């Protein structure tokens, strides 16, 4: 990094909602986007703090958009405003801070996400419960802020420090050190101490009631309210879904044996059983010998046909299959949402999901 590039004046564009753009509150949330030359509202605080951190910056423009307008016209706003922002040739774009304002957080995240692939660094800040966080954290560096405007100074200070690093191409440290949220990126590095020593140290701290910090947080999984059980199976339609990779022979949809990016939908109409010659396992995470010998061992259509007659339910004429081996939670959720929408549309009342 040369002194010349370190000391040059950087151009910044700031994205704000109608409130911070000085237009008005909720009654103005439908306002269409417009641009103000120079800083507006928190933009002045950004400029002041950049100066305090010895970075020569100028907020060349502030893009303002009503929160409701953005939410209702996101595609159009991005299509029209991203070229406007690019037109200012910014070295950095800052959006927000959005605190705990849901629509504002979503807008800030969307603007930043649209800019990053164009090579324009873009950062925002929001509260940990802002829905924009879950939506955009993987693609965008999001600084953690308080839940309301009382945390403005702290959020802007952290954004400024992170922004300077991005302007100068300096190394971004761990999310904790930078005061931003994790993006789910793992980086390999050599630790001075081997894992067993760190594990024992952590264990001793825990036993002694001292503070300790995990090196890998266990993911948080929410809970779903159980739907009422079926009181009587007579006349009910039950669908089979599997993550065990049972597909028609030849795997026509080329579902990956690991880290599946897709699922398949296959017919069961008229099938009393699955056979080696008609079905196989595409799963790469277990020994397929037994599933290939008898695919009913993973997708039990043979037993379902017997029970269908005995109990009076109906087997849905299609089954859905993917491979659960190393498949991301995001992909699994996406598959299941699509599958559930089809099953609901088709009047399916219960699902048996088999996994290996």
């Amino acid at each position, binding site marked *: 990094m040369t002194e010349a590039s370190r000391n040059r004046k950087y151009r910044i564009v700031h994205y704000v909602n109608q409130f911070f753009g000085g237009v008005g509150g909720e009654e103005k949330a439908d306002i269409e986007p417009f641009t103000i030359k120079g800083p507006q509202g928190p933009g002045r605080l950004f400029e002041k703090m950049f100066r305090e951190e010895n970075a020569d910056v100028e907020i060349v423009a502030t893009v303002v958009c009503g929160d409701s307008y953005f939410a209702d016209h996101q595609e159009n706003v991005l299509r029209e405003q991203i070229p406007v922002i690019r037109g200012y040739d910014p070295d950095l774009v800052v959006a927000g801070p959005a605190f705990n304002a849901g629509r504002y957080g979503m807008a800030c995240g969307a603007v930043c996400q649209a800019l990053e692939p164009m090579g324009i660094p873009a950062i925002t800040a929001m509260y940990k419960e802002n829905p924009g966080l879950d939506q955009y954290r993987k693609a965008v560096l999001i600084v953690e802020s308080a839940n309301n405007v009382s945390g403005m100074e702290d959020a802007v200070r952290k954004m400024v420090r992170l922004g300077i690093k991005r302007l100068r191409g300096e190394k971004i440290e761990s999310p904790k050190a930078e005061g931003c949220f994790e993006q789910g990126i793992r980086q390999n590095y050599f630790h001075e101490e081997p894992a067993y020593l760190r594990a024992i140290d952590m264990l001793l701290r825990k036993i002694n009631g001292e503070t300790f910090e995990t090196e890998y947080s266990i993911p948080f*999984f*929410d*809970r*779903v309210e*159980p*739907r*009422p*059980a*079926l009181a009587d199976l007579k006349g009910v339609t039950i669908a089979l*879904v599997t*993550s*065990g990779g049972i597909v028609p022979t030849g795997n026509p949809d080329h579902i990956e044996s690991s880290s599946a990016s897709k699922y398949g939908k296959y017919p069961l109409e008229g099938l009393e059983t699955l056979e080696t010659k008609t079905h196989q396992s595409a799963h790469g995470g*277990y*020994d*397929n*010998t*037994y*599933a290939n*010998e*008898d695919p*009913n*061992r*993973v*997708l*039990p259509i043979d*037993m379902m046909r017997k029970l269908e007659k005995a109990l009076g339910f109906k087997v849905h004429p299609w089954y859905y299959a*993917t491979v659960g081996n190393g498949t991301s*939670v995001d992909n*699994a*959720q996406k*598959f*299941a*949402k699509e*599958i*559930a*929408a089809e*099953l*609901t549309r088709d009047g*399916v*009342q*219960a*699902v*048996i*999901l*088999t*996994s*290996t």
Partner: protein
Amino acid sequence: MAKEIERAGIPVAHVCSIITISQTVGANRIVPSIAIPHPLGNRKNCGGTC
């Protein structure tokens, strides 16, 4: 997947081998199966065909 389908309003029974994974992720109805490579079939009871 069990959770997302249940979230959409359809009750799901998850038949799986490693029930702790299903419990951790949050499936509501879990049926323990026989074994990972043959969850719904006992290969010892296959009449000598395997």
